[in-house]
Every structure is written in structure tokens, then in C-alpha cells.
């Protein structure tokens, strides 16, 4: 009678085949197609370039995955990234803070935004969709106010962060990978992680089990603020400049990456490593289309189709997974 006799232990490894196979296939297919079409796509340089471009997207998508797991959302990540970037830029160029202090200030700015989102939506029990929609406007306004709408050129003094590389992989990339693995482990193997899944599935039941979901939700919003601030620092260091428009449209990208990775928008289901695949798929797609030099409208059409195709694939993977389990 026990149809699902799998132990819940070690879900990271246990579920590898069904969980990651589809995504790996999709990714390989993309790489394959682009390698065939263009001459210079399939090269170490390309992959190194991609690896160095994605860290900020990975961090933001990781935060988004956590939020989606607890059935919340943050539309303000892009704006907050812009704001944090602005703070870092202004701190370095105008206030002449030393780098470590400026970094701390930037993280504080991120945490502040996260705290606002969290406190308002948790305290007034408002949907985070709308609270963070408000924050989307406010943080962008703040970014422009802080920089007076001018890009802050910082120069090589921030280069240390993104410029350091180990075996050709940048520090931010390695950091992002460490954070992804840690986030995945925390989600699947710690008490905190299990609370997140529980809250996303049935917050009322969690409350009735005597656990207050509010501080936990707040913690996730704070974590989002932190990760977004880190992403801002990475990008600012990479570009050696702070642009108040940085991160525009990041929110939808991050959500798309998480959903491509199989995270549910309804809460309670999601994990971080597949989200990384989601980010990789988008990045490979972007790079590949740029290598082909496709027209803008073609790029958009293909991007849209790939997003939809990815989630349809995910559906079939789930059904297939269910079948395998049952037989």
C-alpha cells in the first residue's frame, strides 16, 4: 500500500534524475543548437563569460525562489538592486568612503528595503505583490535621488571584488555557487527550510502548530534584501560604475528562472539548484542569440517561446516523475 516509500532524507541527491534530468537536457539542447549555428559559441571563453555574467542574477533568483516557496513574491528586487548600486557608487565617489564601509552601507540599504517589504506585508497582512510593487517605484526613485540620476563612475577601486579570479572563474561566481548550494541545503535539510516549505503550503496550519510564521517570513524578506545588495555590489564592481537604472526588469527574469526550474508560484514547492539551471538557460539563450546576431524581435519571440516551452517541459517531467514512482 505504500506507494511512496521513498525516505525523505537527502532529497538533494535522491531526486537528481527526475529533478535535474529535464533541465540538463534542455540546457544541453540549447548549447548544442547554438554550437551548430555559430562558429565561436562553443568555446571556453564563452562559458567563462557566461559564468562571470550570471552571479548577480543567480543571487537574486535564489532569493526569489525562497520567496516563492513561502508563497510571497518580490517585484522590487530590480529597483532595490539599482538603489543599492547607487548607494555604493555615491558612497565611494561622493562621500569617499573606504570600500569596506561602502559595502557595509550597501548591505544596510538592501536590508532596509527588505525590512520595509517584510514588515509592511507581514504586519498588515498585505499581499507582497502589491507592497513590493510600491517598493519597485520607491527604490527606483531613491536610486535616482541618491545619484541625481547620474551614473557614478567609480573606477578600479571596486574592481577587487569582481576582478579577483581563481582558475578563470571570478570570485562572485564562486560565491554565487556556494550560496546556491548552501541555500539548497538549508531549504531541504534544516528546520528553517522545512518551516519555509510548511508556510508556503499552509500558513494557517503552521500557525496552529504553534510556530509564528511572521518572523520567518520577515527573515526571508531580509535575506532577499541581503542577497540583492550582494548582487548590486557584484555588478557595480564588475561595471566599475553605479547606474541608477541598474536591475530594471530583473524581477521578471528572476521569477522566470525560478519557475523554469520548477518552483511553484503558489508556494510550498521549489528548490534552488533547478533555479540555477533556469538562470543558465536564460543566460545561454541570451548569449547564443547575441552570437547569432538575431534581430531584436526574433530574440524576443524566441525568449518568450523558450520560457513557455520550459514550463511545459517541467509539467511533463512532473507527470513522468509521478509515473515512474508509481510503477
Amino acid at each position, binding site marked *: 500500500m*505504500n506507494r511512496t516509500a*521513498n525516505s*525523505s532524507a537527502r532529497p538533494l541527491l535522491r531526486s537528481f534524475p527526475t529533478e535535474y534530468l529535464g533541465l540538463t537536457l534542455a540546457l544541453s539542447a540549447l548549447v548544442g543548437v547554438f554550437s551548430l549555428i555559430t562558429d565561436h559559441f562553443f568555446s571556453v571563453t564563452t562559458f567563462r563569460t557566461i559564468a562571470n555574467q550570471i552571479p548577480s542574477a543567480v543571487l537574486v533568483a535564489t532569493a526569489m525562489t525562497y520567496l516563492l516557496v513561502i508563497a510571497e513574491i518580490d517585484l522590487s528586487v530590480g529597483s532595490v538592486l539599482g538603489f543599492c548600486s547607487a548607494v555604493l557608487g555615491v558612497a565611494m565617489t561622493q562621500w569617499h568612503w573606504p570600500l569596506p564601509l561602502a559595502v557595509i552601507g550597501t548591505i544596510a540599504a538592501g536590508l532596509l528595503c527588505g525590512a520595509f517589504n517584510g514588515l509592511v506585508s507581514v504586519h498588515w497582512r498585505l499581499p507582497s505583490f502589491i507592497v513590493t510593487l510600491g517598493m519597485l517605484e520607491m527604490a527606483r526613485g531613491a536610486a535616482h535621488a541618491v545619484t541625481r540620476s547620474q551614473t557614478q563612475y567609480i573606477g578600479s577601486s571596486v574592481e577587487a571584488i569582481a576582478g579577483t579570479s581563481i582558475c578563470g572563474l571570478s570570485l562572485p561566481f564562486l560565491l554565487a555557487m556556494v550560496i546556491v548550494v548552501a541555500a539548497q541545503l538549508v531549504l531541504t*535539510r534544516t*528546520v528553517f527550510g522545512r518551516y519555509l516549505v510548511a508556510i508556503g503550503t*499552509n500558513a494557517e496550519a503552521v500557525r*496552529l*502548530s*504553534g510556530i509564528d510564521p511572521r518572523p520567518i517570513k520577515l527573515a526571508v524578506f531580509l535575506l532577499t534584501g541581503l542577497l540583492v545588495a550582494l548582487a548590486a555590489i557584484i555588478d557595480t564592481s564588475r561595471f566599475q560604475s553605479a547606474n541608477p537604472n541598474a536591475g530594471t526588469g530583473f524581477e521578471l527574469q528572476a521569477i522566470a528562472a525560478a519557475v523554469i526550474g520548477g518552483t511553484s508560484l503558489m508556494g510550498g514547492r521549489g528548490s534552488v539548484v533547478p533555479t540555477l539551471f533556469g538562470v543558465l538557460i536564460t543566460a545561454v539563450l541570451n548569449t547564443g542569440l547575441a552570437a547569432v546576431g538575431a534581430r531584436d524581435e526574433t530574440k524576443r519571440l524566441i525568449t518568450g517561446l523558450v520560457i513557455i516551452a520550459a514550463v511545459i517541459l517541467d509539467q511533463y517531467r512532473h507527470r513522468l516523475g509521478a509515473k515512474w514512482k508509481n510503477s
Partner: protein
Amino acid sequence: MNSGTPLLAIDRLCKAYAGPVLDGIAFDLLAGEVHALVGENGAGKSTLSKIVAGLVQPDEGTMTLRGQPYAPHNKNGAERQGVRMVMQELNLIGNLTVAESVLLGNLPHRWGWIDWRELRDRARGIFERVGLTDIDPGCFVKSLGVGRQQLVEIAAVLARPCDVLILDEPTAALTAPEIERLFVEIAKLKAAGTAILYISHRMEEIQRISDRISVLRDGRLIATRPAAELSLDEIVRMMVGRELGEAIHRESVTAGPVALRVEGLRRGDAVRDVSFETRRGEILGFAGLMGSGRTETMRALFGADRADGGEIFLCDEEKPVRIRSPRDAVRRGIALLTENRKEEGLLLPLPIRANITFLCLGQLSRAGGWIRAATELAEATRWGNALSVRCHSYEQRVDELSGGNQQKVMIAKWLFRNCDVLIFDEPTRGIDVGAKFEIYQLLADLAAQGKAVIVVSSDLKELMALCDRIAVMSAGRVAATFRRGEWTQDKIMTAALSGYLNQ
């Protein structure tokens, strides 16, 4: 046994929502007693227990626990002082494993990292106490049926020590063997000095295990008496405030033509090969152990889940009908009252009116689909009153109703639709005695009108009182079918177990 100062004393407790729900309740709980709380649906039993468990704050009144003032602000507060409760409605977390869900409040961990082995062992230990040896702690909660979910929830509460234990209709979805296990457990706790507040609508249980009985009616405490002094009739009279026609009045059975014939229905492991037929004017019961596949059979038959195989014939027709969705089923005159009213039956935030009329809106509207509001309300009122749904107004949200009244709303909705084959999955789950008899009478009347009625129930007594035939399911098959007069409780139980013995 009933000596010493009360463990918990309640005094002049009042609570009002839209109207008064509890009115000057005063009673006490002694250590080592089982105190039964009975009353009609909506009498205020759950509200009272929620107040004791800290989930709801009273408007007035005081409570004392072990002589100290007791006013818990939330569930945690109550639990810290040794008061625990099994809620009437299920509150499990589908996406967690059973073990995680059961131990959610205190997952075993080292520096925040879950200790899986410890978790599994503890969960096993907990389940063994209530005899749930065949549940794998690693499977997901959402893969369990309602009955098992309820057991899991009970197990979770029993696992932790407490002084006051409230059980709010723990047996509503359980079958006899599980109930027996639960009673053993209750006896153990009682011996250890725990005070138990037991709520149920099954009178035989009340009489079996309770030491004292308190009767609630319309939010007032009618009486608290030792159980031995009260007969069943007396309890019911106090509850309902009037005499109850005990026997169900049934026309002499003249089974009509076949209304529905099912052959070789299969779906996954739960439904392996089910064949049966039911005739107009007949009430066919489905008995079986928990997880024997009764619910899944009915869902597959109704098109709620896609069947893997099998044929369904209606009204002596030669050709099988294709039922691929509930829409097909309803159009062919089959109705299914689902066992999980909260998730699968009701539109909780909508008014009672909208819930009752939902299936027949076409009938209540003018051309273009404009609903005739006055007619709608009149019809909703008619059907609500026919089932004596207790509410302030038919504009009240369904989620404000007591569990039993929600069930009545569901029944009203399907009766209004007037189908030929009516399948009731646990129709009396959480319904009070008075209303239960009303519903039995209703089912009998439906049969008398020439409808085919199928009743799935975990309460064997109920089936034996009501049905013309009883099909007993075991491990996804119909193990035996008995006619009225042929059956005995033992025969049915043997049949119910048969499928598992030779596995």
C-alpha cells in the same frame, strides 16, 4: 475516580460572533476523567474547546487551571501549560512528509540541521502508539486519504505529554479498528491522570468511554451529569430539546430497475477491480477499512479522477457511458458528495446562498444568465430549511458555520440539483444525532422517490441501519455484498479484512 479539585474550571464563559455563540458556560474537568461534550451542530462545542486551547479569546468569563487563573493568548500558551487539542478540521501540511508534519513544532535537529534518523524514529514511535504501523513517515501528507490524515493528526497530539486533552470529533473519519486503538490510548491517558474533553456525535462512543457528559444547546450548558445516570434518549432530548423519532421510516423495499452498473473499474493501486450495481429505490452502502479504496472508487466513477479501465452502464443501457469528467457525470444524473468538504466541496468565503444554488443557477436565471436574486434566495432558504442549516442569514459566509452545518449545506446543494444516482461519501461526517436522523430520513425518502442512493461510510452501525445492501470493499476490490438480514457486524468485518490477509 472523580475526586479532588477540578483540574480545569470554566466560569461564565461568553463568546459572540455575529450572534451569541457561548452564553455563560460554567463547568469543570477533573483529572483522570473523560468528559464528553455533546450538542447539536453549531451548539458551540468547537468554539468552547478552541477557547480552552487558546485559539479563540472569550468575550467574558474566566478559566482556572490547577487553581491558577488561566487565560492563554495562543495555542503555544495553552500547550506550555499542558493543554492540547485535536482540531475538528484537518490542518496538515501537504508538501511535507508525514514525519515532518507531525513533528513540525519540534523537529529534532543539530544546529538547525535536521536529524533525519531521529526524525523518522520518533515519527515511527508516535504512529505505533496509535497503531499506524503501515504509514511510512517519509511519504508526503497529501498522498494520504482523509481518514489517515486524521489519524496522523491525532497521533501528533497524543505523542506529547499533556494534562488536558481536547479531542474534537476525532473519530468522524475513522473506521472501527482505528477507533478501538484510539480508545485504548485514551484509557492509558486517563489512567495517567489526564483530563480528556471528548466531543463526538457518535452516541455509542460517548456512552462507552465517558465518565461525565455535558450537554450544550444553543451556546448554553444544559446539564452536566455522570454518564451512568443518562440514557441515550435523555441525552438526545437534552441536546435537541425535543423527542426524536428513533426509527427511520422506510417504504417497503421494492428495488426498481438497475440505475447504475459498474464493471471492472480500475484506477492505480487503490481501485483494482470493482464491479457492482445499484437499483432505483435502493440504498447501497459501502463499508470497508480506511484506505480500502471506497473514496477512490467513487471519484473514478464520477470522473473526478481518470479511471485506468472499467465500464459504467446507466439504466439498463447496453452501451457503456463515457464519463471523463464530473461534468459528464452530472449531466448523466450522477451526483457525488465528496468526503473533504473544505477542499473539494464548498466555496468557503461565499455566502450559504451561493453555495446551495451553485449547481442550479441556470434554473434561477433569466435569459442571458441574469440571476433572479429573489428567487435564488427563496430557493436557498427552502433547501437550507429542509436540512435545518443553522445560521444567522443565508448571506453568511460558509466558513463561519460549524462543521456539521457546512456538511448540510453541501447536501442541500446536491439535493437541489436533483440527480438520479446520488453518491454520498461520508454524508454524516460531523453531523449531530438529530440531524443525522434527518439525513437518514432524507436518504430514505430519496430512495423512495426512485433514486439510486450510494452511501460510503466508516460508521458501520449507520450503514446497517440505513442500507438495503452493503458492499464491503477490501484492498481495492468488492470483497462481498450482503443483503439486509444477511449481514452481521462480524461478517462484514471479516470481509473487510479478507483482501489484506491473502496478500
